[in-house]
């Protein structure tokens, strides 16, 4: 989708602000969001592409104003509600409880003993490489990216659509996010590192002597000549 998350080449955000001696977490709730994300991922409640697409569907103004882990919270909550892992009513009830008791621990409303944990797959976000099929392109081949505007999840950035590049290398066959984010299966296909000259991407406005490498799935690409 042409969402607010697709930031490459946008202007107006100002200079990069660095924080000296930045702590690992700015507050304990940020670590709780990381723990929730990892638990949800490793226990198979959502895959990495569903997680990302959950974040991409935030309201644009909220996305730009939210901190990083607030984005995670918003995306994860959306996906868990959609999948029925948590119900809207029970979440609203729990939210009312904590709005009244902002300092209560997460275990405060629990009355029954905790159930045993499901098995986890700790490599969930790395487990994307599948056995190879034939590859359409080889290193050095010219390619043209498709000029498409899919309504769902895609990892073809807007700034690189309809652009000419050259295959740098193939990374093997990877799960395809555009289907994997929508319950349409892994549909694995070759993933390539594609090199684009900055002039192809940014035209007359390009800075000199600059190239961008983007990792793109085979179905994003057409033969370039």
């Amino acid at each position, binding site marked *: 989708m042409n969402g607010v998350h697709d930031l490459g080449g946008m202007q107006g955000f100002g200079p990069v602000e660095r924080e000296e001696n*930045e702590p690992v977490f700015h507050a304990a709730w940020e670590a709780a969001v990381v723990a929730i994300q990892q638990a949800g991922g490793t226990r198979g409640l959502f895959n990495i592409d569903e997680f990302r697409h959950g974040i991409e569907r935030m309201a644009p103004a909220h996305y730009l104003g939210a901190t*990083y882990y607030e984005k995670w919270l918003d995306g*994860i909550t959306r996906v868990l509600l959609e999948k029925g892992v948590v119900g809207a009513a029970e979440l609203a009830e729990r939210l009312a409880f904590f709005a009244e008791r902002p300092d209560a621990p997460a*275990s405060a409303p629990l009355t029954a003993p*905790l159930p045993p944990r499901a098995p986890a797959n700790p490599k969930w*976000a790395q487990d994307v490489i599948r056995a190879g099929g034939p590859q359409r392109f080889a290193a050095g081949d010219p390619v043209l990216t498709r000029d498409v505007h899919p309504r769902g999840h895609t990892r073809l950035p807007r700034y690189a659509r309809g652009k000419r590049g050259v295959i740098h290398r193939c990374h093997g066959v990877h799960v395809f996010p555009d289907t994997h984010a929508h319950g349409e299966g892994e549909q694995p296909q070759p993933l390539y590192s594609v090199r684009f000259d900055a002039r192809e991407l940014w035209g007359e406005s390009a800075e000199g002597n600059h190239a961008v490498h*983007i990792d793109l799935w085979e179905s994003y690409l057409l033969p370039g000549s």
Partner: protein
Amino acid sequence: MGKNHPNVDPYVVSRVRALESLLLEKGILAPDAVDRVIQRYEADTGPMVGARAVARAWTDPDYKRLLLDDPRTALKRFELDYAMLMVVENTEPVHNLVVCTLCSCYPWPVLGLPPTWYKMPAYRSRAVSEPRALLGEMGLAVDPRREIRVWDSSAEMRYMVLPQRPSGTEGMGEDALVPLITRDALIGVAEVRPPAPAIR
């Protein structure tokens, strides 16, 4: 805290607690999961594995070749099995820079958690379109004769820069080099500086 950290609505904290509590109750979240995350990232934080691999590459040409050609095998020397990393080498003609324009993909296992600026729109939007101006503002002037090669981490592959070894470090061994190698140099927004001369 600046605009990287707009004031967080207290309601956000309630939302986290509510979800955390439901997932605890359903057996999805372990009771010690949050403490383990804090322990893991606060104790093992920083670019330790990445810095060690770079220091070894600077002192052992065979290891450097392995790190560039087969990073997974190279990282196993540091007890890390990480299949998704690509290592890109800074040279006289090329300076590399890593970004994720679509989200904030970052090689956590070798660099620790990303800094906030890496995840904010200013960096993500500009790194691909005006990297030379961006790096200049961040304090790194890249010679116009050097190509800036930006790696947009749009898939599950992750990128780490192998910086150039600074002059003045010729006699130094791997252990002495490690502390010089910063996270920012491994992202490509800084170069590695030689150690400051000792005060006599």
